[in-house]
């Protein structure tokens, strides 16, 4: 119920958000070409831009609830088709990065937290924090420069090699080579979040009495960590991972642009340049819906994992 209300609010908010931008979508559509006044007016009428903003809003609401996201100003294709076409690329890149960031980041946090103030802790904490504080597109550009431009180990962008026809396993390998750098960039950039949350949560749990009890029982250090400390310490990390899963669809605007990865992030960057109102509205609606959905999933998951949280 709460989630549905949030979504309704997002739908309304989306409409006005993009219309605050002081820019004429028509100018972009025409790309500076000299077109007669009459044609311009026709175009305006065709997209409903001649109507008062309140009327536009009513149309927008009605059509959105019918499942019609409109026609992109830019491509003149239905927004929904444009979006669906780009979902697989984004889910693949962000999904792989999410998995690596979560698994490696959490493992780093466990090592750092359990052996606090040792050289391992310092090494892990400082390196993941450095990567986390660096802008992701900048990290992407550096990796691209080093590994693609200078060393030539990886392609400089896109999802597959252009101009050659590869099949079967070779095509798959070629695809992996394209995926590697953008996925590495995003994994490195977001690992730090998991490391810091895991570390601080573990450090907090380590001062709990039940860990002293576990040690007093004669358990091995590893058993104390894995059976008593981690099931408690990882609760907030699981929530974080589930929440971040909601951002998978929204793609990575900057990194996708750096690597010319044809996903939703790149589509967003293009649509902002318009501004392509229907496309932006469609994209943001999808992003919000996915974040809200995964928030809900995170709550349900927490209820399942933590016996203290009863269903309300």
């Amino acid at each position, binding site marked *: 119920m709460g989630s549905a209300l949030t979504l309704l609010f997002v739908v309304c908010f989306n409409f006005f958000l993009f219309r605050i931008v002081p820019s004429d979508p028509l100018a972009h559509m025409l790309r500076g070409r000299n077109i007669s006044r009459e044609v311009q007016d026709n175009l305006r009428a065709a997209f409903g831009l001649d109507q008062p903003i309140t009327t536009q809003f009513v149309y927008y609401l009605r059509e959105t609830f019918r499942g019609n996201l409109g026609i992109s100003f830019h491509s003149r294709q239905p927004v929904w088709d444009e979006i669906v076409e780009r979902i697989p690329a984004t889910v693949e890149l962000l999904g792989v990065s999410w998995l690596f960031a979560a698994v490696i980041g959490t493992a780093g946090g466990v090592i750092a937290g359990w052996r606090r103030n040792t050289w391992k802790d310092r090494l892990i904490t400082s390196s993941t924090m450095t990567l986390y504080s660096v802008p992701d597109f900048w990290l992407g550009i550096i990796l691209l420069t080093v590994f693609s431009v200078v060393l030539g180990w990886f392609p400089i962008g896109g999802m597959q090699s252009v101009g050659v026809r590869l099949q079967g396993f070779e095509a798959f390998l070629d695809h992996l080579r394209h995926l590697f750098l953008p996925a590495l960039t995003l994994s490195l950039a977001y690992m730090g979040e998991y490391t810091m949350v895991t570390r601080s949560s573990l450090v907090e749990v380590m001062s709990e*009495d*039940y860990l002293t009890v576990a*040690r007093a*029982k004669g358990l091995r250090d590893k058993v104390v960590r894995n059976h008593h400390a981690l099931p*408690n310490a990882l609760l907030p990390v699981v929530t974080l991972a589930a929440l971040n899963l909601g951002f998978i669809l929204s793609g990575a605007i900057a990194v996708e642009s750096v690597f010319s990865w044809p996903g939703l992030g790149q589509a967003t960057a293009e649509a902002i340049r318009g501004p392509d109102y229907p496309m932006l509205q469609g994209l943001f609606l999808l992003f919000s819906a996915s974040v809200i959905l995964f928030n809900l999933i995170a709550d349900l998951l927490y209820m399942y994992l933590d*016996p*203290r949280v009863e269903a309300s």
Partner: protein
Amino acid sequence: MSEPVLVLEDLRVTYRTSGGAVPAVRGVSLEIPAGGSLGLAGESGCGKSTIAGAVLRLLPGTAEVSGRVLLAGKDVYELKPGGLRAVRWTAGAIVFQGALHALNPVQRIGDQIAEPMLVHQTVSTPKAAKTRVAELLESVGIPARRAAAYPHQLSGGQRQRVLIAMALACDPQLLIADEPTTALDVMVQAQVLELLADLRRQRDLALLFITHDLSLLTTYCDRLAIMYAGRIVEEGPSGDVFAGPSHPYTRGLAAAFPRIGDRSSRMAPSGLGGDPPDPAALPAGCPFHPRCPLARPECREAEPALRISGPERRAACILV
């Protein structure tokens, strides 16, 4: 006489902190015979809980320990990690304070009780462990079906009983009870203490009972040791110590409990003035002298050693 279950010889514990070394325990020697019981009393910060942790070598890395701890004849601080794990919970087990977070919140209590049995292989199968968990829970007055409950589903008194059941899991020779009833209301406190006393009689358990409540100790322990500023200041059979304290500090502690039916003690409760000293900056001489009603000039000079103050009694005061 059989070998004592626990012997502390000149135990000293110093915590290294950023503000310098803080001596928490400054030379404590004591003995508990098999099946015997000793009550350790004192105000907060006197080092009594540090002793509980020191017996099973559970103190944090910042604690420096010297002296000897002999638990069931084994020198705890000479043991290798494997040997240490083997003594923990089988020779000596601790009943922690249940109101704090002594139970793992995301594990069922039955599993937490069964865990040490499986680790120390005192039972051969998980099924046998389950049977034993049921017995233990029944013996502390909790229905066996509650084994599937999580700690938050139990009351404070029940959690304390679970901690007792857990401590008994591997049939230890010594039970260390560290303020086991502090956060419980008086009725529940009495039930838990009766339970401990019963179990002790049935199983011939030795008990080290740590609390700030002197009146509890006289009822439940054979002997009493009073701690002040990291040292034992008085020791002896509990009834004698409570009824006729030798050390002015014990006298102050005992007087802090009003006697029922005695009007004068109710109208004028005579506690101790002042606060316990900061372990990082102890006064020179006898650490109790700033609060002592009988202090003399020479009390400022040297810290008195424990000496005989009666049959089986010792006290550390120049006046005895």
